């Protein structure tokens, strides 16, 4: 072959191969960026979305145009199903704007982003003790500072709710990376190869069905997940000196909560806040580490902010309490099933328990007969008595275990 012909074929090959690879990435859409059709057995499951909520959810939340948002971390992502029958009928399209491992600040910034461009009427905000429990330095001058990262660049509004001028550029960058990158190609191939029923996945509404946990449980037993999470939790709570607020009795997290309430009131959005449920072994870890007073301060702090800024229009629910749902045997060879009824592991509840939460909060009769109330609406009760009762139950459980 002559060198000129070779050069021609070479040049054409570069164009054709580039086009072909980008088309594959577009068709498979491993990060749920382009809204490509999901075909069973080919690209229906999206394993590559597992660690990329921060990439695709800001865009998906805009594309879906939800009227209801579920906001929070991985707990509501796995526990509250937007497609559950327990949602009130008029709630329309529900999107799970939830981010595993993300700070509360990040969760709230994402919420402001989604609300900036969607006709949102309802927000269900799941709050988490560990998101509020941080190492605090001197009281801050600014509790809602700007932050820089790829994630914040993808949001339509900045920390002051001003329009982000580089939003379109960043979107273009993310969308091109989804087409013209080796990571995307690699993830397209692994998507094609991971289409079994229990593959890691996120739905088009941002929900994590967590079916991959079933595989782990089947092969390794529920104790593995339980031990892994407990190790993480104990490690987290081992860190001394953390608190839910600083010397001024305020924090970025409470500031975020206040801003969310103000946003909801200003835009006439129905806001419901709830504290995620934990398995009682999680409470044990809090108790052992000496952070129980902070746990109570967290609940009281939430209550105060809701009372002060909520104008009696914001509901606050506590599901992080001892109940027939959260107290079940720790997984053992004999009693794995009882544990697995409501929880995947101590920190993550199942969507089945999530339905009970929804049923409580929205007074829906969508679940079978309840064992007892799942949660308590804090707006209506004496918080000190409520906390004292939980303290007693905690002491009782500790005694039981010691015996």
């Amino acid at each position: 072959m002559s060198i000129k012909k070779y050069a021609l074929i070479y040049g054409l090959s570069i164009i054709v191969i580039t086009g072909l690879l980008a088309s594959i990435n577009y068709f498979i859409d491993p990060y749920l960026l382009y809204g490509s059709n999901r075909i069973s057995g080919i690209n229906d499951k999206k394993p590559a979305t597992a660690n990329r909520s921060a990439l695709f959810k800001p865009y998906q939340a805009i594309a879906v145009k939800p009227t209801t948002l579920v906001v929070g971390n991985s707990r509501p992502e796995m526990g509250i199903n937007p497609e559950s029958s327990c949602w009130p009928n008029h709630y329309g399209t529900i999107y799970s704007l939830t981010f595993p491992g993300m700070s509360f600040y990040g969760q709230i910034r994402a919420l402001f982003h989604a609300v900036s461009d969607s006709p949102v009427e309802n927000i269900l905000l799941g709050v988490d003790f560990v998101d509020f429990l941080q190492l605090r330095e001197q009281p801050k001058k600014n509790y809602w500072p700007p932050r820089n990262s790829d994630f914040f660049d993808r949001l339509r509004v900045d920390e002051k709710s001003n329009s982000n001028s580089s939003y379109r550029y960043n979107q273009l960058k993310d969308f091109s990376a989804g087409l013209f990158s080796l990571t995307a190609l690699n993830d397209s191939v692994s998507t094609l190869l991971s289409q079994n029923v229990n593959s890691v996945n996120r739905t088009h509404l941002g929900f994590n069905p967590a079916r991959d946990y079933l595989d782990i449980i089947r092969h390794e037993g529920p104790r593995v997940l339980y031990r892994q999470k407990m190790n993480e939790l104990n490690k987290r709570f081992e860190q001394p000196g953390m608190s839910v607020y600083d010397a001024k009795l305020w924090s970025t997290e409470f500031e975020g909560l206040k801003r969310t309430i103000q946003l909801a009131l200003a835009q006439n959005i129905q806001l419901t806040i709830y504290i995620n449920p934990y398995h009682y072994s999680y409470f044990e870890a809090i108790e052992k580490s000496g952070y129980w007073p902070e746990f109570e301060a967290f609940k009281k702090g939430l209550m105060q902010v809701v009372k002060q800024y909520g104008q009696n229009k914001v509901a606050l629910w506590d599901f992080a309490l001892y109940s027939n749902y959260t107290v079940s045997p720790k997984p053992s060879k004999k009693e794995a099933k009882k544990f697995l009824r409501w929880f995947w592991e101590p920190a993550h509840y199942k969507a089945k328990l999530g339905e009970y939460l929804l049923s409580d909060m929205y007074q829906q009769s969508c679940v079978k007969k309840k064992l007892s109330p799942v949660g308590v609406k804090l707006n209506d009760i004496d918080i000190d008595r409520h906390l004292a009762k939980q303290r007693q139950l905690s002491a009782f459980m500790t005694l039981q275990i010691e015996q």
Partner: protein
Amino acid sequence: MLFNSYIFIFAFLPFTFLGYFFLAKHKSGETAISFLVLASLFFYGWWNPIYLLLILVSMAVNYGLGETIVRRRNSQKFKQAQGFLIYGLIFNLGLLAYFKYANFIVDNINSLFSSGFNLDEIILPLAISFFTFQQIAYLIDAYRGITKEFKFSHYALFVTFFPQLIAGPIVHHKEMLPQFMQMDNLKPKLENMIIGLTIFSLGLFKKVVIADGVAQYSTPVFDAAAAGEALSFFIAWGGALAYSFQLYFDFSGYSDMAIGIAKMFGILLPLNFASPYKSLSIIEFWRRWHMTLSRFLRDYVYISLGGNRKGDVRRFANLFATMLLGGLWHGAGWTFVFWGGLHGLYLVINHGWHYLQRKAKLEFLHQNLLWRVFSWFLTFFAIVNAWVFFRASSFTAAVVMMEGMYGFNGVAIPNAIFARLGGLQTILNQIGVTSFIGGGSQFMFTYLWVSALLVAVLLPNTQQIMNSHPDAQLRSPYALCDQGLLSGKLKFRYGVCWAMVSACALVIAVFGLTRVSEFLYFQF
């Protein structure tokens, strides 16, 4: 500026290429060469413009000294020539000592004498080790009467020529300066472009896809060792093996890219790697690994120390000292010195073994396949062990790695794999293999990568693939004759298949320049 960046591939390289040949055609060869020098300085200054001053001063001083040495030598004033050579060596080594080793020296003085000398953090100028060595060689050769007189622009291009400036190969003035003066090289040639682009693509693929791909399996292990975590046997070996391949493909890929880019400009750079992990001995390894550095160390350190001219004991001492210096050249830290010393020791043992082999008439062993496999295994094992010291952030971290690799923390595999082993579980438990939670896929991919790359290194290298074509003759500092697996099929030629393979390597490698960020439970 890095070769593996968009700005280089889509802006700097095309602009420089077109500008160079345009000026050569419409102005003059000298203008084109000056343009290339300026482009190379821009390439260098992209990182930190302030260090342009350093390279410019270094070049001017060395050029002046070189010219002076040549003139003094030509007029038989050898003492004066020697004096200027010594000034040159002091100047070059002084710069290197200040920028690369000052903090290291001060830290060691403080540790030894409990003193409190304080030196602000000195930022290491990019490529200082490379351009210093090249210029030292130039001065020594000027003194030896090998160097001729050259124009400053040619000399400046020899030092700054951007393909080799950042990470080698360490070029020799004898092989570079004559090429700049060939008028034929000032005309663009399609075959140079095609061959150059093909070699560049292979190099970019090695760097971006393979080296960066396998890095994610070595970095966390070495980080864990640095944090003092106890590593179990397979985890530690996985990290050490992954790093061994990462380093090779990174360095070799970068060298290939340099060779490919230079080829586009009609310039042949010497090869730097020739399948070093195929070596059957450490002596052979150093003929295949970073060949231009080995050549420099041999010609300008080992031979200057006396080489093998003063008996075996002195020869081994020279070898050991050369390798210690070679270690120190790679970085200002005791782990690098130890790495160099370890290789020095390996080389001494290897030479000692050769001596014994000759005495005991055991040379026939080389023909035995089993012996060759054993030799390969032993060599590779020794190399991987030494890399641990090269990579570890401190001696303590290296020891933590070693403890893991030698089973001090037991042998364990991830529970996700262990749980699927069925009946094997009992046997493994009996021999003390345990399981741990998490890290299943990381573990599996580490060993998949390592296994795949182990096969890959047995394939023909770039030189062997390209040398089969008359347009693509490459230059190797050492003659090597082995071919590797599939050597009959992997020969470059102008054909549809090669056009597509080469285009595919380029496209995938360019795709590799962008990464879709992950969010792995960081609080931000």
